[in-house]
């Protein structure tokens, strides 16, 4: 009887412990997720760069490039100039920026 009770108690403890572990893990995961979401790493013209929530337009500004003098490719797709402002870069995106200089 005593054994049984102990076992029962152990089982309750074990269940409680498991749930607690799951809770901690989930929250650690969420915590990591929040950190990771804030900083993403992308590849710009072959170079790895880290940014926080960045659009193509902001990236161009960061790189000191004029949006009217570039061609932008994200993962091999040409992006329209009208979408530079709203296009959020995602982690591991491959961005190619071709900037044109005057003369001809």
């Amino acid at each position, binding site marked *: 009887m005593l054994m049984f009770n102990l076992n029962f108690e152990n089982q309750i403890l074990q269940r409680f412990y498991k749930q607690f572990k799951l809770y901690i893990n989930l929250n650690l995961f969420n915590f990591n997720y929040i950190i990771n979401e804030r900083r993403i790493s992308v590849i710009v013209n072959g170079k790895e760069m880290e940014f926080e929530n960045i659009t193509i337009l902001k990236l161009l500004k960061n790189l000191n490039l004029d949006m*009217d*003098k*570039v*061609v932008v*490719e994200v993962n*091999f797709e*040409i992006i*329209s*100039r009208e979408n530079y402002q709203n296009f959020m870069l995602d982690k591991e995106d491959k961005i*190619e920026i*071709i*900037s*044109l*200089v*005057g*003369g*001809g």
Partner: protein
Amino acid sequence: MEIFLNEKSIAVDKGTTIFSIKKDFKPDADIIIHNGFIISEDVILKEHDRVTLIKKGEIPSKKELEALMISRHTPGVHEKIKNAKVGIAGLGGLGSNASISLARIGVGYLKLVDFDVVEPSNLNRQQYFVKHLGMKKTDAIKDLISQINPFVKIEAENAYIDRNNVEKIFSDVDIIVEAFDNPMSKAELINTVLQKMSEKTIVAASGMAGYFSNNTITTKKIRENFYLIGDGISEAKPGCGLMAPRVSIAANHQANTVLRIIMGEKDV
């Protein structure tokens, strides 16, 4: 067996040599071209060989001229070039040079577009002559090409190209040469072609001002239908102007890229 003498089919005996043909048909010829190549030593002819005999200083008829010009084009290459349709956007330093090279090799159809007239500051690098000053560039380039290769079909359009008319202007060409001066127009044309006309190939240029090294001007393949020529950085600006040598180096990178695409050579 059959051979072609000045592009006309004739029958000759097996074992006939080029020098014996010359003796029989044009003993005073001083240039002998065998399958697109000038020769000085006798050769035994093979079936379907092409032989052209030219007398220097002789002005041929227009029909004869075409045959004589074709003689310098490599057989098998010329047919493909003659069927090609190429558009040139801008007829300044890049466009005037590229279109003349493409006309010389015998590209069958050229669509040439510019909105401007020839003015004195163009003459430092563009292919125009003093007599063209004040003329529309489209008319001036037609005049030049008619003096170089009158057998190219040319359609010239006096227009300012932007995103709204580019599809219509270049609807009937396969390859477009971006030959603008203004970087915003360059970007607008490239973006429009890549997004709306992806079945066509664009050959653009960026960075050819000054007298920096020849060897920094390169041809890069950016994507399947987009080639970019230049050093990428040498912008035309005060103190660093555009000059004939580097501009024509870049223009002829463009022309050779067009030729390679026509011939099915898609890599740089």
